[in-house]
C-alpha cells in the first residue's frame, strides 16, 4: 500500500518494452512505491482516467500511441493536466528532451535509468505535486469553484492589477468575552458553524472569502473574477449573513447558549488585487483605500450599534430594495477626511 507519510506513491509506468517495464517497476517497488504498468500510450491513458495516480513514468517510443501523443492528451485533460510526468527514454537528441518539456513533462531521464537519480527525481516531482495540491486546496477553501478553476487555468500570477470591486469585513461582536465564558471546544464549534454560514452566504452572492483571522473575515466581490453589480451582491450577502446569524441565535438560545451578533463593513471602489506570497504559498488579497474604509466601517458598527455599515460608493449602487439610513460624516481612524456612512437594513 502506498504510504504518503513515508514518501510512497502510486505510480504508473508506461513502456512498450518488457525488460524496461519490469526493471523500472522493480526499482520503484524497491523504493517503496506501488506500481502499475501499461504497455502503450493508449492503455496508459485509459488507466489514468480510471484510476488515481500520483505520477507517471513515460516512455516516448511506443506503438499505438507514443509518449508525445500521451503528453498532448494530458495537457488537454482538465483532470489529468497536473499529473507529474517523468519521461524515461533512450531517444537520441536534445530536441526530444526539449519537446517533452514543452509538452509539460516534469523531468527527463535517459535510459538505462540510474536508480539513485530516479529516486531523487521522483522525490522532487512528488514534493512539487504536494505543494500544488496544497495550493489548490487553499484556493478551493477560499474561493468558489468557478474562481478556483479560473485561477488554475490562468496560473498563479503574483502581480497585482487594478479592479473595481467591493470589499467586506465581518466579525463577531464581543467574541473575546464569549471565548472566556465557554469551553474552548464550544468556541471552535461555534467558529466552524459561523464560518460555514458566512462562506455560504458570501459564495452564494458571488463573493470570495480571502482572509480569516480569529472571528474576523475579509471577502471580495468583483475579484479575482469580475462580478456585475458587485456592491449590490455584497449588500445582499450581508443581509443573508445577518439572517443566518439570527437563525443561529435562535438555535443557540434553545440550547441554553448566549446568542451571537456580527458587524459588517462594506466599501466599494478601485483597488489593487492580486496574489501575495510566493509560488508555494500565496493568498489572494486587495490593497487600497477602499479596503481600509471597509475595515474601519466594520469597527464603527459597534459604536453606532448597527449591524451593517456601507460607504457612499456602495450606497450609490444600491436600489430601492434596501432600507438605507444616512448617519452623516464620520471621522474614521486612519482617514484624514470624514467619510459619509450609511446603515443598511432589509427594505420595507
Amino acid at each position, binding site marked *: 500500500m502506498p504510504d504518503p507519510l513515508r514518501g510512497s506513491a502510486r505510480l504508473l509506468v508506461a513502456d512498450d518494452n518488457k525488460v524496461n517495464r519490469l526493471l523500472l517497476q522493480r526499482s520503484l517497488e524497491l523504493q517503496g512505491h506501488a506500481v502499475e504498468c501499461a504497455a502503450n500510450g493508449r492503455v496508459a491513458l485509459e488507466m489514468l482516467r480510471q484510476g488515481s495516480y500520483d505520477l507517471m513514468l513515460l516512455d516516448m*517510443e511506443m*506503438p499505438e500511441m507514443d509518449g508525445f501523443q500521451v503528453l498532448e492528451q494530458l495537457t488537454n485533460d482538465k483532470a489529468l493536466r497536473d499529473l507529474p510526468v517523468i519521461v524515461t527514454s533512450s531517444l*537520441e537528441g536534445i530536441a526530444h528532451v526539449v519537446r517533452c518539456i514543452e509538452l509539460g513533462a516534469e523531468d527527463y531521464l535517459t*535510459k538505462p535509468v540510474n536508480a539513485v537519480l530516479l529516486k531523487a527525481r521522483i522525490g522532487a516531482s512528488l514534493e512539487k505535486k504536494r505543494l500544488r495540491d496544497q495550493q489548490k486546496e487553499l484556493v478551493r477553501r477560499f474561493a468558489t469553484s468557478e474562481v478556483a478553476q479560473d485561477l488554475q487555468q490562468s496560473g498563479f500570477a503574483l502581480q497585482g492589477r487594478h479592479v473595481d470591486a467591493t470589499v467586506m469585513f465581518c466579525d463577531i461582536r464581543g467574541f473575546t468575552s464569549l471565548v472566556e465564558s465557554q469551553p474552548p471546544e464550544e468556541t471552535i464549534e461555534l467558529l466552524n458553524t459561523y464560518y460555514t454560514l458566512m462562506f455560504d452566504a458570501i459564495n452564494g452572492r458571488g463573493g470570495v472569502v480571502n482572509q480569516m483571522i480569529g472571528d474576523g473575515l475579509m471577502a471580495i466581490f468583483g475579484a479575482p473574477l469580475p462580478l456585475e453589480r458587485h456592491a449590490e451582491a455584497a449588500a445582499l450577502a450581508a443581509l443573508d449573513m445577518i439572517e443566518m446569524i439570527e437563525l443561529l441565535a435562535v438555535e443557540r438560545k434553545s440550547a441554553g447558549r448566549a446568542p451571537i451578533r456580527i458587524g459588517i463593513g462594506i466599501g466599494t471602489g478601485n483597488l489593487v488585487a492580486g496574489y501575495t506570497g510566493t509560488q508555494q504559498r500565496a493568498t489572494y488579497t486587495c490593497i487600497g483605500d477602499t479596503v481600509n474604509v471597509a475595515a474601519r466601517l466594520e469597527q464603527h458598527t459597534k459604536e453606532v450599534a448597527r449591524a451593517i455599515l456601507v460607504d457612499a460608493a456602495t450606497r450609490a449602487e444600491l436600489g430601492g430594495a434596501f432600507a438605507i439610513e444616512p448617519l452623516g460624516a464620520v471621522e474614521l481612524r486612519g482617514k484624514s477626511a470624514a467619510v459619509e456612512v450609511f446603515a443598511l437594513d432589509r427594505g420595507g
Partner: protein
Amino acid sequence: MTMADAPPIDNAMFIELQESAGADFVAELVDTFLEEAPRMLAELRATATTGRPDAFRRAAHSLKSNANTFGATKLGTLARDLELNGVPVGGGDAELDALAREYERVRARLQELRRA
C-alpha cells in the same frame, strides 16, 4: 583491444544492475530479454525489406535500450547505428548478420552470468 575483442557484457555495469535490482530479479530479467530479443532481431529482418522504416527504427531502438541495460555495449552500439541511420543501403543483410552474431555472444555470456 578492438571492438570485436571487447567482452560482450561490461561486467561493472552488470554487477551494478544486480546490486540495484537484486541478483534473483536480474536473472529473471535476463530470461525476459532472451525471450524478447529474438523477436526484435526478426522484426529488424522483416521490416528492413518491407519498407516500414518506423517499425525498423523502433525495433532497433528497443534492442539498443535493452542492450544498454545489461551492459551489452557493442550490441547497443550496433543497434543504435541502425536506429539513427535506418535500413542500411543494400538492404542491411551484412549489418543484421553482424548484429545477430553479437547477440549470440551476448546471449552466451548472459546465460553464464545468470547462473553465476
